[in-house]
């Protein structure tokens, strides 16, 4: 009855008081040190997340038990100004290896001055993630969406 509509991209910006090269490095090399650990998809609690520093590189989380879960791939690696990665976590909160179902995140780093950088992020093609019926089932039938939230709740509880 309903078709999957196009979902407007998400955007966000943040300004950091640091040189552009350093901000790019913090974002990429240091990915696991700043990504909020509650946002992860693996069964195990997240130990760290890794963004491999080259085109075609993997973007994945490592669990405390050593397990790994892919999130996406590096599509463009243009330090220190631009990074494009795919986000392939679908409506069931699982990695979907099919590139046709990959949403994209483009991050741009622009130097406002020698010691100030603006980071702009766009998460686009969100509709590719929505295998309409799957997402509906996930939300209403206690599937993936609920599972992720339960993982989040569990992780939060375990931390206290």
């Amino acid at each position: 009855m309903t078709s999957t509509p196009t979902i407007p991209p998400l955007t966000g910006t943040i300004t950091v008081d640091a040189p552009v090269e350093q901000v790019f490095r913090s974002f990429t090399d240091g990915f696991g040190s700043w990504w909020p650990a509650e946002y992860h998809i693996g069964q195990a609690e997240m130990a760290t997340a890794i963004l491999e520093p080259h085109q075609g590189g993997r973007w994945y989380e490592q669990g405390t038990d050593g397990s790994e879960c892919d999130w996406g791939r590096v599509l463009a690696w243009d330090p220190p100004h631009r990074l494009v990665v795919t986000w392939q976590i679908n409506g069931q909160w699982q990695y979907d290896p099919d590139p046709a179902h990959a949403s994209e995140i483009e991050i741009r780093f622009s130097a406002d001055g020698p010691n100030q950088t603006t980071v702009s992020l766009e998460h686009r093609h969100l509709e590719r993630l929505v295998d309409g019926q799957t997402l509906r089932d996930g939300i209403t039938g206690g599937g993936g969406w609920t599972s992720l939230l339960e993982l989040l709740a569990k992780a939060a509880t375990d931390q206290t």
Partner: protein
Amino acid sequence: MDTNGADGLGLLGDPTRRAIFELLARRPSTVGELARQLPITRSAVSQHLRVLKDGGLVVSRAEGTRRIYRLNPDGVTALRAYLDRVWAEALTAFGKTAQAAPTDPEQEDP
């Protein structure tokens, strides 16, 4: 409030609204059921639900004398709003970490 419903940014920024959203993701519920699980009044729950409904994240239907709330089964708006929240938190976290990282050696004590 005449904001565009497509702009989910901020809707889940309120911790209580996020808690309601997450409770509804687990199970469709009435206002009373939600209020029992949260440290706020029924009328406060109703106000948050109205905001979530206006934003397209939540729908409701009458069942006898009860009104049951659940996440919008279309899911698209909910997914987008949730990811919006993820990025808002992630970028804030990044800003703090990047700011705290050591800057130029000449500006720092060794």
